[in-house]
Protein backbone atom coordinates (compact mmCIF):
# COMPACT_ATOMS: atom_id res chain seq x y z
CA UNK A 1 0.00 0.00 0.00
CA UNK A 2 1.45 3.33 -1.03
CA UNK A 3 0.79 6.45 0.93
CA UNK A 4 -0.84 8.66 -1.67
CA UNK A 5 -4.47 7.63 -1.92
CA UNK A 6 -5.53 6.51 -5.35
CA UNK A 7 -9.02 7.84 -4.79
CA UNK A 8 -10.17 10.65 -2.56
CA UNK A 9 -13.76 11.45 -1.93
CA UNK A 10 -14.86 14.45 0.02
CA UNK A 11 -18.19 15.81 1.01
CA UNK A 12 -20.00 13.86 -1.67
CA UNK A 13 -23.71 14.52 -1.73
CA UNK A 14 -26.37 13.03 -3.96
CA UNK A 15 -29.98 14.02 -3.74
CA UNK A 16 -32.85 12.54 -5.68
CA UNK A 17 -35.75 14.88 -6.08
CA UNK A 18 -39.19 13.37 -5.60
CA UNK A 19 -41.49 14.80 -8.18
CA UNK A 20 -45.24 14.86 -8.27
CA UNK A 21 -47.59 15.78 -11.08
CA UNK A 22 -46.67 18.96 -12.97
CA UNK A 23 -43.04 18.09 -12.17
CA UNK A 24 -43.65 19.66 -8.80
CA UNK A 25 -40.88 18.86 -6.37
CA UNK A 26 -42.36 17.14 -3.40
CA UNK A 27 -39.13 16.61 -1.54
CA UNK A 28 -35.84 14.88 -1.95
CA UNK A 29 -34.09 11.74 -0.90
CA UNK A 30 -30.67 12.35 0.52
CA UNK A 31 -29.09 9.22 -0.83
CA UNK A 32 -25.62 10.50 0.03
CA UNK A 33 -25.07 13.23 2.52
CA UNK A 34 -21.51 14.52 2.86
CA UNK A 35 -19.59 11.31 2.35
CA UNK A 36 -15.81 11.45 2.44
CA UNK A 37 -13.00 8.89 2.55
CA UNK A 38 -9.63 7.99 1.06
CA UNK A 39 -8.73 4.83 -0.73
CA UNK A 40 -5.14 3.67 -0.80
CA UNK A 41 -3.64 1.74 -3.67
CA UNK A 42 -4.17 -1.97 -3.23
CA UNK A 43 -6.54 -1.58 -0.35
CA UNK A 44 -9.91 -3.30 0.08
CA UNK A 45 -12.40 -0.94 1.63
CA UNK A 46 -15.59 -2.49 2.89
CA UNK A 47 -18.80 -0.56 2.77
CA UNK A 48 -21.62 -1.89 4.92
CA UNK A 49 -25.04 -0.71 5.95
CA UNK A 50 -28.70 -1.43 5.66
CA UNK A 51 -30.58 -1.66 2.45
CA UNK A 52 -31.25 1.76 1.01
CA UNK A 53 -28.55 3.53 3.00
CA UNK A 54 -26.83 4.66 -0.19
CA UNK A 55 -24.13 2.08 -0.79
CA UNK A 56 -24.94 1.53 -4.43
CA UNK A 57 -25.44 5.20 -4.98
CA UNK A 58 -21.97 5.86 -3.66
CA UNK A 59 -20.54 3.24 -5.95
CA UNK A 60 -22.37 4.56 -8.97
CA UNK A 61 -21.40 8.12 -8.22
CA UNK A 62 -17.75 7.17 -8.04
CA UNK A 63 -18.12 5.37 -11.28
CA UNK A 64 -19.84 8.34 -12.88
CA UNK A 65 -23.10 6.65 -13.67
CA UNK A 66 -24.72 8.95 -11.17
CA UNK A 67 -23.95 12.67 -11.15
CA UNK A 68 -23.17 14.04 -7.69
CA UNK A 69 -25.15 16.96 -6.38
CA UNK A 70 -22.00 18.33 -4.80
CA UNK A 71 -18.62 17.23 -3.51
CA UNK A 72 -15.45 16.14 -5.16
CA UNK A 73 -13.91 12.89 -6.35
CA UNK A 74 -10.19 12.84 -7.10
CA UNK A 75 -8.70 9.92 -8.89
CA UNK A 76 -4.93 9.73 -8.80
CA UNK A 77 -4.85 13.37 -7.88
CA UNK A 78 -7.13 14.42 -10.73
CA UNK A 79 -10.59 15.77 -10.14
CA UNK A 80 -13.15 13.72 -12.02
CA UNK A 81 -16.09 16.03 -11.82
CA UNK A 82 -16.26 18.79 -14.42
CA UNK A 83 -14.43 16.98 -17.18
CA UNK A 84 -15.60 16.55 -20.70
CA UNK A 85 -17.41 13.29 -21.22
CA UNK A 86 -14.52 11.94 -23.26
CA UNK A 87 -11.90 12.66 -20.60
CA UNK A 88 -14.14 11.41 -17.88
CA UNK A 89 -14.68 8.24 -19.81
CA UNK A 90 -10.97 7.72 -20.25
CA UNK A 91 -10.43 8.23 -16.54
CA UNK A 92 -13.19 5.90 -15.66
CA UNK A 93 -11.81 3.11 -17.69
CA UNK A 94 -9.60 2.55 -14.74
CA UNK A 95 -12.40 2.83 -12.22
CA UNK A 96 -15.09 0.24 -12.68
CA UNK A 97 -18.31 -0.80 -11.05
CA UNK A 98 -19.47 -4.38 -10.77
CA UNK A 99 -23.20 -4.50 -10.58
CA UNK A 100 -25.13 -5.76 -7.61
CA UNK A 101 -27.08 -8.00 -9.94
CA UNK A 102 -24.60 -9.16 -12.58
CA UNK A 103 -27.25 -11.13 -14.44
CA UNK A 104 -29.24 -7.97 -15.02
CA UNK A 105 -26.21 -6.05 -16.16
CA UNK A 106 -25.79 -8.34 -19.15
CA UNK A 107 -27.95 -7.84 -22.20
CA UNK A 108 -30.23 -10.87 -22.13
CA UNK A 109 -30.09 -11.15 -25.91
CA UNK A 110 -26.34 -11.03 -26.23
CA UNK A 111 -24.10 -14.00 -25.86
CA UNK A 112 -21.57 -13.75 -23.11
CA UNK A 113 -18.75 -13.42 -25.60
CA UNK A 114 -20.35 -10.50 -27.32
CA UNK A 115 -20.99 -8.73 -24.04
CA UNK A 116 -17.39 -9.22 -23.07
CA UNK A 117 -16.20 -7.93 -26.39
CA UNK A 118 -18.22 -4.74 -26.19
CA UNK A 119 -15.84 -2.74 -23.96
CA UNK A 120 -13.05 -3.48 -26.39
CA UNK A 121 -15.10 -2.33 -29.35
CA UNK A 122 -15.94 0.90 -27.60
CA UNK A 123 -12.55 1.74 -26.21
CA UNK A 124 -9.99 0.15 -28.47
CA UNK A 125 -9.58 -0.54 -32.10
CA UNK A 126 -8.21 -4.02 -31.81
CA UNK A 127 -9.04 -6.30 -34.72
CA UNK A 128 -11.73 -8.85 -34.10
CA UNK A 129 -9.30 -11.71 -33.78
CA UNK A 130 -7.38 -10.10 -30.97
CA UNK A 131 -10.56 -9.13 -29.25
CA UNK A 132 -11.74 -12.71 -29.28
CA UNK A 133 -8.41 -13.88 -27.97
CA UNK A 134 -8.66 -11.41 -25.15
CA UNK A 135 -12.17 -12.58 -24.34
CA UNK A 136 -10.99 -16.15 -24.08
CA UNK A 137 -8.08 -15.14 -21.96
CA UNK A 138 -10.20 -13.22 -19.53
CA UNK A 139 -12.79 -15.98 -19.29
CA UNK A 140 -10.10 -18.39 -18.18
CA UNK A 141 -8.77 -15.95 -15.68
CA UNK A 142 -12.15 -15.70 -13.97
CA UNK A 143 -12.34 -19.46 -13.97
CA UNK A 144 -14.86 -20.04 -16.72
CA UNK A 145 -14.43 -22.39 -19.66
CA UNK A 146 -13.90 -20.48 -22.91
CA UNK A 147 -16.95 -22.24 -24.31
CA UNK A 148 -19.14 -20.11 -22.07
CA UNK A 149 -18.66 -17.25 -24.53
CA UNK A 150 -21.34 -18.88 -26.64
CA UNK A 151 -23.95 -19.05 -23.91
CA UNK A 152 -26.66 -16.58 -23.06
CA UNK A 153 -26.76 -15.00 -19.61
CA UNK A 154 -29.83 -16.95 -18.55
CA UNK A 155 -28.08 -20.18 -19.38
CA UNK A 156 -25.48 -19.85 -16.66
CA UNK A 157 -25.79 -19.84 -12.90
CA UNK A 158 -25.75 -16.84 -10.62
CA UNK A 159 -22.20 -17.47 -9.50
CA UNK A 160 -21.05 -17.73 -13.08
CA UNK A 161 -22.91 -14.57 -14.01
CA UNK A 162 -20.95 -12.82 -11.34
CA UNK A 163 -17.74 -14.04 -12.87
CA UNK A 164 -18.81 -12.82 -16.26
CA UNK A 165 -19.69 -9.43 -14.79
CA UNK A 166 -16.23 -9.26 -13.39
CA UNK A 167 -14.60 -10.41 -16.57
CA UNK A 168 -16.39 -7.67 -18.45
CA UNK A 169 -14.93 -5.10 -16.16
CA UNK A 170 -11.48 -6.58 -16.28
CA UNK A 171 -11.47 -6.25 -20.05
CA UNK A 172 -10.65 -2.60 -19.53
CA UNK A 173 -7.74 -3.15 -17.14
CA UNK A 174 -9.19 -1.07 -14.34
CA UNK A 175 -7.31 -0.14 -11.22
CA UNK A 176 -10.14 0.36 -8.83
CA UNK A 177 -13.12 -1.95 -8.89
CA UNK A 178 -16.28 -1.25 -6.96
CA UNK A 179 -17.88 -4.56 -6.08
CA UNK A 180 -21.52 -4.03 -5.24
CA UNK A 181 -22.80 -6.80 -2.96
CA UNK A 182 -20.86 -9.44 -4.86
CA UNK A 183 -22.07 -12.29 -2.68
CA UNK A 184 -25.67 -11.33 -2.08
CA UNK A 185 -28.01 -14.18 -2.87
CA UNK A 186 -25.26 -16.76 -3.17
CA UNK A 187 -25.10 -19.92 -1.16
CA UNK A 188 -22.32 -20.16 1.32
CA UNK A 189 -20.58 -22.77 -0.74
CA UNK A 190 -20.69 -20.66 -3.92
CA UNK A 191 -19.95 -17.52 -1.99
CA UNK A 192 -16.72 -19.00 -0.81
CA UNK A 193 -15.46 -19.72 -4.30
CA UNK A 194 -16.45 -16.27 -5.52
CA UNK A 195 -14.59 -14.64 -2.65
CA UNK A 196 -11.51 -16.56 -3.45
CA UNK A 197 -11.76 -15.44 -7.04
CA UNK A 198 -11.79 -11.82 -5.94
CA UNK A 199 -8.73 -12.34 -3.90
CA UNK A 200 -6.88 -14.09 -6.72
CA UNK A 201 -7.84 -11.52 -9.29
CA UNK A 202 -6.68 -8.75 -7.04
CA UNK A 203 -3.30 -10.29 -6.96
CA UNK A 204 -3.14 -11.03 -10.65
CA UNK A 205 -4.35 -7.65 -11.82
CA UNK A 206 -3.14 -5.51 -8.97
CA UNK A 207 -6.56 -4.20 -8.12
CA UNK A 208 -7.98 -1.94 -5.48
CA UNK A 209 -11.47 -2.81 -4.26
CA UNK A 210 -14.35 -1.04 -2.75
CA UNK A 211 -16.34 -3.92 -1.38
CA UNK A 212 -19.98 -3.14 -0.80
CA UNK A 213 -21.83 -5.65 1.31
CA UNK A 214 -24.24 -6.00 4.12
CA UNK A 215 -22.74 -9.25 5.25
CA UNK A 216 -20.35 -8.31 7.99
CA UNK A 217 -18.72 -11.68 8.24
CA UNK A 218 -17.73 -11.56 4.59
CA UNK A 219 -16.43 -8.05 5.01
CA UNK A 220 -14.36 -9.15 7.91
CA UNK A 221 -12.89 -11.87 5.83
CA UNK A 222 -12.07 -9.72 2.83
CA UNK A 223 -11.42 -6.13 3.79
CA UNK A 224 -8.70 -4.06 5.30
CA UNK A 225 -10.91 -1.20 6.33
CA UNK A 226 -14.67 -0.86 6.72
CA UNK A 227 -16.98 2.11 6.41
CA UNK A 228 -20.40 1.77 7.98
CA UNK A 229 -23.12 3.78 6.32
CA UNK A 230 -26.42 4.79 7.75
CA UNK A 231 -28.96 6.79 5.77
CA UNK A 232 -26.51 8.35 3.36
CA UNK A 233 -23.71 9.02 5.74
CA UNK A 234 -20.62 7.17 6.85
CA UNK A 235 -21.15 6.86 10.56
CA UNK A 236 -18.06 4.90 11.36
CA UNK A 237 -14.92 3.95 9.51
CA UNK A 238 -11.84 2.13 10.61
CA UNK A 239 -9.62 -0.92 10.24
CA UNK A 240 -11.71 -4.03 10.06
CA UNK A 241 -10.51 -5.82 13.17
CA UNK A 242 -10.81 -2.83 15.44
CA UNK A 243 -14.15 -1.78 14.10
CA UNK A 244 -15.66 -5.19 14.40
CA UNK A 245 -14.26 -6.10 17.71
CA UNK A 246 -14.72 -2.74 19.22
CA UNK A 247 -17.46 -0.81 17.48
CA UNK A 248 -17.87 2.76 18.63
CA UNK A 249 -21.06 3.88 16.95
CA UNK A 250 -24.30 2.52 18.44
CA UNK A 251 -25.48 1.62 14.96
CA UNK A 252 -22.38 -0.41 14.24
CA UNK A 253 -22.82 -2.03 17.57
CA UNK A 254 -26.35 -3.09 16.88
CA UNK A 255 -25.51 -4.18 13.38
CA UNK A 256 -22.85 -6.48 14.71
CA UNK A 257 -25.18 -7.72 17.37
CA UNK A 258 -27.96 -8.49 14.94
CA UNK A 259 -26.12 -11.15 12.99
CA UNK A 260 -26.84 -14.63 14.17
CA UNK A 261 -23.67 -16.63 14.30
CA UNK A 262 -23.39 -20.32 14.53
CA UNK A 263 -22.27 -21.19 18.02
CA UNK A 264 -22.36 -17.52 18.90
CA UNK A 265 -24.62 -15.93 21.47
CA UNK A 266 -28.33 -15.98 20.69
CA UNK A 267 -28.88 -12.50 19.32
CA UNK A 268 -32.63 -12.64 19.29
CA UNK A 269 -32.88 -13.25 23.00
CA UNK A 270 -32.19 -9.67 23.84
CA UNK A 271 -31.80 -7.74 20.65
CA UNK A 272 -32.35 -4.15 21.67
CA UNK A 273 -32.71 -2.26 18.42
CA UNK A 274 -36.30 -1.40 17.64
CA UNK A 275 -38.06 0.15 14.74
CA UNK A 276 -36.71 0.77 11.32
CA UNK A 277 -34.56 3.40 9.64
CA UNK A 278 -36.09 6.84 9.26
CA UNK A 279 -37.51 7.92 5.96
CA UNK A 280 -34.60 9.04 3.79
CA UNK A 281 -36.72 11.76 2.28
CA UNK A 282 -37.66 13.16 5.61
CA UNK A 283 -34.73 13.07 8.01
CA UNK A 284 -35.25 14.56 11.46
CA UNK A 285 -32.89 17.30 12.61
CA UNK A 286 -29.91 16.09 14.57
CA UNK A 287 -28.43 12.60 14.46
CA UNK A 288 -30.01 10.34 11.88
CA UNK A 289 -29.88 7.35 14.18
CA UNK A 290 -31.76 9.03 17.00
CA UNK A 291 -35.03 7.19 16.35
CA UNK A 292 -33.52 3.78 17.05
CA UNK A 293 -30.58 4.57 19.29
CA UNK A 294 -30.83 3.09 22.79
CA UNK A 295 -28.57 5.83 24.15
CA UNK A 296 -30.32 8.82 22.68
CA UNK A 297 -29.78 12.12 24.54
CA UNK A 298 -31.36 15.54 23.93
CA UNK A 299 -28.35 16.76 22.00
CA UNK A 300 -28.83 13.97 19.49
CA UNK A 301 -32.15 15.46 18.56
CA UNK A 302 -30.65 18.86 17.85
CA UNK A 303 -27.24 18.50 16.36
CA UNK A 304 -25.92 16.28 13.64
CA UNK A 305 -22.72 14.87 15.14
CA UNK A 306 -19.44 15.75 13.43
CA UNK A 307 -16.88 13.06 12.59
CA UNK A 308 -14.51 12.45 15.42
CA UNK A 309 -11.60 10.11 15.71
CA UNK A 310 -11.77 7.61 18.52
CA UNK A 311 -9.02 5.08 18.61
CA UNK A 312 -8.47 3.68 15.15
CA UNK A 313 -11.94 4.64 14.01
CA UNK A 314 -13.58 7.81 12.78
CA UNK A 315 -17.09 7.96 14.23
CA UNK A 316 -20.02 10.30 13.72
CA UNK A 317 -21.56 10.12 17.17
CA UNK A 318 -21.77 12.61 20.01
CA UNK A 319 -20.86 9.90 22.42
CA UNK A 320 -18.41 7.91 20.43
CA UNK A 321 -16.35 5.74 22.69
CA UNK A 322 -18.70 6.35 25.58
CA UNK A 323 -21.51 4.00 24.66
CA UNK A 324 -21.43 0.23 24.67
CA UNK A 325 -23.83 -2.41 23.56
CA UNK A 326 -26.03 -3.79 26.32
CA UNK A 327 -24.38 -6.86 27.75
CA UNK A 328 -26.15 -9.98 26.53
CA UNK A 329 -27.43 -12.31 29.18
CA UNK A 330 -26.14 -15.75 28.24
CA UNK A 331 -28.88 -18.12 27.25
CA UNK A 332 -29.26 -21.47 28.88
CA UNK A 333 -28.96 -23.15 25.53
CA UNK A 334 -28.96 -26.82 24.91
CA UNK A 335 -25.71 -28.24 26.18
CA UNK A 336 -23.17 -28.76 23.50
Amino acid at each position, binding site marked *: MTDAPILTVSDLTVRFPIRGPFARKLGEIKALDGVGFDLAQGEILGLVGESGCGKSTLGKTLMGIQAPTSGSITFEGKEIAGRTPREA*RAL*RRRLQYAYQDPG*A*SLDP*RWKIGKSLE*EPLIIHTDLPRKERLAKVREILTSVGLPAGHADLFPHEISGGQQRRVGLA*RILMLNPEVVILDEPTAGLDVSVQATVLRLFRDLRETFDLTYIFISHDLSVVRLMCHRVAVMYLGRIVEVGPVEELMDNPKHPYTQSLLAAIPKVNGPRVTENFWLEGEPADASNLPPGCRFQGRCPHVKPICRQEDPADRTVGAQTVACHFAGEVFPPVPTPKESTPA
Partner: protein
Amino acid sequence: MTALKRLLADRAASIGAALILGLILVAIFAPVLAPYPGDVTAFHLTERLQPPSADHLFGTDRMGSDVFSRILFGARITITIAVIAVGVSVGIGVPIGLIAGYYGGFPGGFLMRTSDIFLAVPQIVLAIAIAQTLGPSVENVILALSLTYWPFWARLVYAETRSLKAQTFVEAALALGASDLRVMVLHILPNTASAIIVRTSIGMGATILTAAALGFLGLGAPPPTPEWGRTISEAREFLPEAWWYAAAPGLAIFLVVMGFNLLGDGLRDILDPKLRKGSR
Protein backbone atom coordinates in the same frame (compact mmCIF):
# COMPACT_ATOMS: atom_id res chain seq x y z
CA MET B 1 -33.67 -22.33 -35.98
CA THR B 2 -34.92 -23.19 -32.53
CA ALA B 3 -37.47 -20.43 -32.90
CA LEU B 4 -38.73 -22.10 -36.03
CA LYS B 5 -38.95 -25.41 -34.25
CA ARG B 6 -40.88 -23.85 -31.42
CA LEU B 7 -43.16 -22.23 -33.94
CA LEU B 8 -43.89 -25.53 -35.58
CA ALA B 9 -44.51 -27.09 -32.20
CA ASP B 10 -47.22 -24.55 -31.45
CA ARG B 11 -50.32 -25.72 -33.24
CA ALA B 12 -52.05 -22.36 -33.43
CA ALA B 13 -48.95 -20.59 -34.61
CA SER B 14 -48.23 -23.15 -37.28
CA ILE B 15 -51.79 -22.92 -38.56
CA GLY B 16 -51.33 -19.17 -38.68
CA ALA B 17 -48.03 -19.46 -40.45
CA ALA B 18 -49.56 -21.89 -42.91
CA LEU B 19 -52.42 -19.51 -43.66
CA ILE B 20 -50.02 -16.66 -44.28
CA LEU B 21 -47.72 -18.79 -46.34
CA GLY B 22 -50.80 -19.76 -48.32
CA LEU B 23 -51.66 -16.13 -48.80
CA ILE B 24 -48.20 -15.32 -50.03
CA LEU B 25 -48.13 -18.25 -52.40
CA VAL B 26 -51.56 -17.37 -53.70
CA ALA B 27 -50.44 -13.81 -54.21
CA ILE B 28 -47.35 -14.87 -56.11
CA PHE B 29 -48.94 -17.60 -58.17
CA ALA B 30 -52.33 -16.01 -58.67
CA PRO B 31 -51.95 -16.01 -62.47
CA VAL B 32 -51.16 -19.72 -62.39
CA LEU B 33 -53.68 -20.74 -59.78
CA ALA B 34 -56.62 -18.73 -61.00
CA PRO B 35 -58.87 -20.68 -63.35
CA TYR B 36 -59.68 -17.47 -65.22
CA PRO B 37 -56.71 -15.18 -64.76
CA GLY B 38 -58.10 -12.74 -67.29
CA ASP B 39 -61.19 -12.12 -65.24
CA VAL B 40 -59.64 -9.32 -63.29
CA THR B 41 -60.40 -7.02 -66.16
CA ALA B 42 -62.33 -9.18 -68.58
CA PHE B 43 -66.09 -9.53 -68.35
CA HIS B 44 -68.61 -12.00 -69.53
CA LEU B 45 -71.78 -10.04 -69.27
CA THR B 46 -73.91 -13.01 -70.16
CA GLU B 47 -72.69 -14.97 -67.18
CA ARG B 48 -73.48 -12.52 -64.43
CA LEU B 49 -74.16 -13.68 -60.91
CA GLN B 50 -73.92 -17.39 -61.43
CA PRO B 51 -74.00 -19.45 -58.26
CA PRO B 52 -70.97 -21.57 -57.34
CA SER B 53 -70.45 -24.46 -59.68
CA ALA B 54 -67.67 -26.65 -60.93
CA ASP B 55 -66.77 -23.97 -63.45
CA HIS B 56 -66.89 -21.18 -60.97
CA LEU B 57 -65.93 -22.30 -57.54
CA PHE B 58 -67.28 -19.19 -55.88
CA GLY B 59 -69.69 -18.23 -58.61
CA THR B 60 -69.50 -15.11 -60.73
CA ASP B 61 -69.92 -11.44 -59.98
CA ARG B 62 -71.87 -8.56 -61.38
CA MET B 63 -69.69 -8.43 -64.47
CA GLY B 64 -69.74 -12.17 -64.99
CA SER B 65 -66.17 -12.59 -63.82
CA ASP B 66 -65.05 -15.57 -61.82
CA VAL B 67 -65.16 -14.63 -58.14
CA PHE B 68 -62.59 -17.24 -57.19
CA SER B 69 -60.04 -15.89 -59.65
CA ARG B 70 -60.66 -12.38 -58.48
CA ILE B 71 -60.24 -13.40 -54.86
CA LEU B 72 -56.89 -14.92 -55.71
CA PHE B 73 -55.76 -11.74 -57.38
CA GLY B 74 -57.19 -9.75 -54.50
CA ALA B 75 -54.63 -11.44 -52.27
CA ARG B 76 -51.94 -9.47 -54.04
CA ILE B 77 -53.54 -6.18 -53.20
CA THR B 78 -54.24 -7.23 -49.67
CA ILE B 79 -50.70 -8.31 -49.05
CA THR B 80 -49.28 -5.22 -50.70
CA ILE B 81 -51.41 -2.93 -48.60
CA ALA B 82 -50.66 -4.77 -45.40
CA VAL B 83 -46.94 -5.10 -45.93
CA ILE B 84 -46.30 -1.56 -47.05
CA ALA B 85 -48.66 0.13 -44.62
CA VAL B 86 -47.32 -1.82 -41.69
CA GLY B 87 -43.77 -1.42 -42.93
CA VAL B 88 -44.11 2.32 -43.10
CA SER B 89 -45.84 2.45 -39.73
CA VAL B 90 -43.04 0.47 -38.20
CA GLY B 91 -40.55 2.69 -39.93
CA ILE B 92 -42.09 5.81 -38.48
CA GLY B 93 -43.31 4.49 -35.16
CA VAL B 94 -40.30 2.55 -33.98
CA PRO B 95 -37.71 5.34 -34.21
CA ILE B 96 -40.11 7.83 -32.69
CA GLY B 97 -40.94 5.52 -29.83
CA LEU B 98 -37.29 4.69 -29.35
CA ILE B 99 -36.14 8.28 -29.26
CA ALA B 100 -39.03 9.46 -27.15
CA GLY B 101 -38.58 6.63 -24.71
CA TYR B 102 -34.82 6.92 -24.55
CA TYR B 103 -34.53 10.64 -24.02
CA GLY B 104 -37.85 11.11 -22.21
CA GLY B 105 -38.47 14.52 -20.78
CA PHE B 106 -40.14 17.19 -22.79
CA PRO B 107 -39.20 16.01 -26.28
CA GLY B 108 -40.31 12.51 -25.42
CA GLY B 109 -43.55 13.78 -24.00
CA PHE B 110 -44.10 15.91 -27.05
CA LEU B 111 -43.55 13.04 -29.45
CA MET B 112 -45.85 10.82 -27.50
CA ARG B 113 -48.55 13.47 -27.34
CA THR B 114 -48.28 13.84 -31.07
CA SER B 115 -48.75 10.16 -31.47
CA ASP B 116 -51.75 10.36 -29.13
CA ILE B 117 -53.25 12.93 -31.41
CA PHE B 118 -52.85 10.72 -34.42
CA LEU B 119 -54.27 7.88 -32.44
CA ALA B 120 -57.31 9.97 -31.65
CA VAL B 121 -57.93 10.93 -35.25
CA PRO B 122 -60.48 8.45 -36.50
CA GLN B 123 -58.68 6.30 -39.01
CA ILE B 124 -61.59 6.27 -41.37
CA VAL B 125 -61.73 10.04 -41.40
CA LEU B 126 -58.09 10.40 -42.18
CA ALA B 127 -58.35 7.82 -44.90
CA ILE B 128 -61.31 9.64 -46.34
CA ALA B 129 -59.51 12.93 -46.33
CA ILE B 130 -56.53 11.44 -48.05
CA ALA B 131 -58.63 9.48 -50.46
CA GLN B 132 -60.51 12.60 -51.37
CA THR B 133 -57.41 14.70 -51.72
CA LEU B 134 -55.42 12.34 -53.81
CA GLY B 135 -58.17 10.25 -55.21
CA PRO B 136 -59.00 6.82 -53.85
CA SER B 137 -56.39 4.28 -54.76
CA VAL B 138 -54.38 1.54 -53.23
CA GLU B 139 -51.45 3.90 -52.66
CA ASN B 140 -53.62 6.29 -50.76
CA VAL B 141 -55.13 3.60 -48.64
CA ILE B 142 -51.59 2.67 -47.74
CA LEU B 143 -50.74 6.26 -46.96
CA ALA B 144 -53.81 6.71 -44.82
CA LEU B 145 -53.19 3.51 -42.92
CA SER B 146 -49.54 4.31 -42.36
CA LEU B 147 -50.36 7.74 -41.06
CA THR B 148 -52.80 6.36 -38.55
CA TYR B 149 -51.04 3.18 -37.58
CA TRP B 150 -47.60 4.37 -36.63
CA PRO B 151 -48.62 5.55 -33.17
CA PHE B 152 -49.33 1.98 -32.16
CA TRP B 153 -45.71 1.07 -32.70
CA ALA B 154 -44.49 4.32 -31.25
CA ARG B 155 -46.44 3.65 -28.08
CA LEU B 156 -45.29 0.10 -27.81
CA VAL B 157 -41.64 0.87 -28.40
CA TYR B 158 -41.89 3.87 -26.12
CA ALA B 159 -43.17 1.76 -23.25
CA GLU B 160 -40.63 -0.97 -23.87
CA THR B 161 -37.81 1.52 -24.16
CA ARG B 162 -38.82 3.21 -20.96
CA SER B 163 -38.63 0.01 -19.04
CA LEU B 164 -35.47 -1.16 -20.77
CA LYS B 165 -33.83 2.19 -20.18
CA ALA B 166 -34.27 1.65 -16.47
CA GLN B 167 -32.67 -1.76 -16.64
CA THR B 168 -29.27 -2.42 -15.33
CA PHE B 169 -27.77 -3.80 -18.49
CA VAL B 170 -28.47 -0.56 -20.30
CA GLU B 171 -26.93 1.41 -17.49
CA ALA B 172 -24.02 -0.96 -17.52
CA ALA B 173 -23.47 -0.47 -21.22
CA LEU B 174 -23.53 3.27 -20.76
CA ALA B 175 -21.12 2.90 -17.87
CA LEU B 176 -18.75 1.05 -20.15
CA GLY B 177 -18.72 4.14 -22.30
CA ALA B 178 -21.15 3.10 -25.04
CA SER B 179 -22.70 5.97 -26.94
CA ASP B 180 -26.43 6.70 -26.88
CA LEU B 181 -26.80 5.56 -30.44
CA ARG B 182 -25.02 2.33 -29.73
CA VAL B 183 -27.17 1.63 -26.72
CA MET B 184 -30.35 2.47 -28.58
CA VAL B 185 -29.62 0.48 -31.68
CA LEU B 186 -27.67 -2.45 -30.31
CA HIS B 187 -29.11 -2.96 -26.87
CA ILE B 188 -32.59 -1.51 -26.65
CA LEU B 189 -33.91 -2.12 -30.13
CA PRO B 190 -33.13 -5.84 -30.24
CA ASN B 191 -34.79 -6.25 -26.89
CA THR B 192 -37.98 -4.67 -28.17
CA ALA B 193 -37.84 -6.81 -31.27
CA SER B 194 -40.08 -9.57 -30.06
CA ALA B 195 -42.74 -7.14 -28.96
CA ILE B 196 -42.49 -5.39 -32.30
CA ILE B 197 -42.74 -8.63 -34.21
CA VAL B 198 -45.80 -9.71 -32.30
CA ARG B 199 -47.43 -6.34 -32.66
CA THR B 200 -46.58 -6.27 -36.33
CA SER B 201 -48.09 -9.62 -36.97
CA ILE B 202 -51.31 -8.65 -35.28
CA GLY B 203 -51.11 -5.22 -36.87
CA MET B 204 -51.06 -6.84 -40.28
CA GLY B 205 -54.40 -8.40 -39.53
CA ALA B 206 -55.83 -5.15 -38.28
CA THR B 207 -54.53 -3.32 -41.31
CA ILE B 208 -56.16 -5.77 -43.64
CA LEU B 209 -59.45 -5.31 -41.84
CA THR B 210 -59.26 -1.54 -41.99
CA ALA B 211 -58.21 -1.56 -45.62
CA ALA B 212 -61.18 -3.76 -46.34
CA ALA B 213 -63.46 -1.42 -44.43
CA LEU B 214 -62.20 1.47 -46.53
CA GLY B 215 -62.79 -0.54 -49.65
CA PHE B 216 -66.24 -1.30 -48.32
CA LEU B 217 -66.99 2.38 -47.91
CA GLY B 218 -65.84 2.96 -51.47
CA LEU B 219 -62.67 4.72 -50.45
CA GLY B 220 -60.18 2.12 -51.48
CA ALA B 221 -59.04 0.81 -54.77
CA PRO B 222 -61.17 1.81 -57.75
CA PRO B 223 -63.09 -0.73 -59.79
CA PRO B 224 -62.50 -3.16 -61.27
CA THR B 225 -59.74 -3.89 -58.77
CA PRO B 226 -60.45 -7.23 -57.13
CA GLU B 227 -59.83 -5.85 -53.65
CA TRP B 228 -61.76 -7.89 -51.10
CA GLY B 229 -63.42 -5.09 -49.18
CA ARG B 230 -64.72 -3.45 -52.29
CA THR B 231 -65.91 -6.80 -53.59
CA ILE B 232 -68.02 -7.17 -50.47
CA SER B 233 -69.44 -3.74 -50.94
CA GLU B 234 -70.20 -4.49 -54.59
CA ALA B 235 -71.92 -7.64 -53.48
CA ARG B 236 -74.28 -5.88 -51.14
CA GLU B 237 -76.63 -4.96 -53.95
CA PHE B 238 -77.08 -8.56 -54.81
CA LEU B 239 -77.76 -9.97 -51.38
CA PRO B 240 -79.20 -12.24 -50.27
CA GLU B 241 -79.62 -13.97 -53.60
CA ALA B 242 -75.98 -13.86 -54.65
CA TRP B 243 -74.75 -14.89 -51.21
CA TRP B 244 -71.49 -16.29 -52.54
CA TYR B 245 -70.47 -12.94 -53.89
CA ALA B 246 -70.03 -11.47 -50.41
CA ALA B 247 -69.27 -14.68 -48.58
CA ALA B 248 -66.14 -15.53 -50.54
CA PRO B 249 -64.18 -12.33 -49.94
CA GLY B 250 -65.49 -12.22 -46.36
CA LEU B 251 -64.08 -15.66 -45.73
CA ALA B 252 -60.83 -14.75 -47.42
CA ILE B 253 -60.40 -11.76 -45.15
CA PHE B 254 -61.33 -13.88 -42.17
CA LEU B 255 -58.78 -16.56 -42.93
CA VAL B 256 -55.94 -14.19 -43.60
CA VAL B 257 -56.53 -12.00 -40.59
CA MET B 258 -56.93 -15.08 -38.49
CA GLY B 259 -53.63 -16.33 -39.86
CA PHE B 260 -51.83 -13.19 -38.80
CA ASN B 261 -53.46 -13.22 -35.39
CA LEU B 262 -52.65 -16.84 -34.76
CA LEU B 263 -49.09 -16.29 -35.82
CA GLY B 264 -48.85 -13.19 -33.64
CA ASP B 265 -50.15 -15.11 -30.65
CA GLY B 266 -47.79 -17.94 -31.30
CA LEU B 267 -44.86 -15.61 -31.68
CA ARG B 268 -45.80 -13.91 -28.46
CA ASP B 269 -45.55 -17.20 -26.65
CA ILE B 270 -42.37 -18.14 -28.40
CA LEU B 271 -40.55 -14.86 -28.18
CA ASP B 272 -41.64 -13.60 -24.82
CA PRO B 273 -39.20 -15.04 -22.31
CA LYS B 274 -41.57 -14.14 -19.49
CA LEU B 275 -44.27 -16.37 -20.87
CA ARG B 276 -41.74 -19.01 -21.65
CA LYS B 277 -40.80 -19.12 -18.03
CA GLY B 278 -44.45 -19.30 -17.06
CA SER B 279 -45.09 -22.25 -19.28
CA ARG B 280 -42.24 -24.26 -17.91
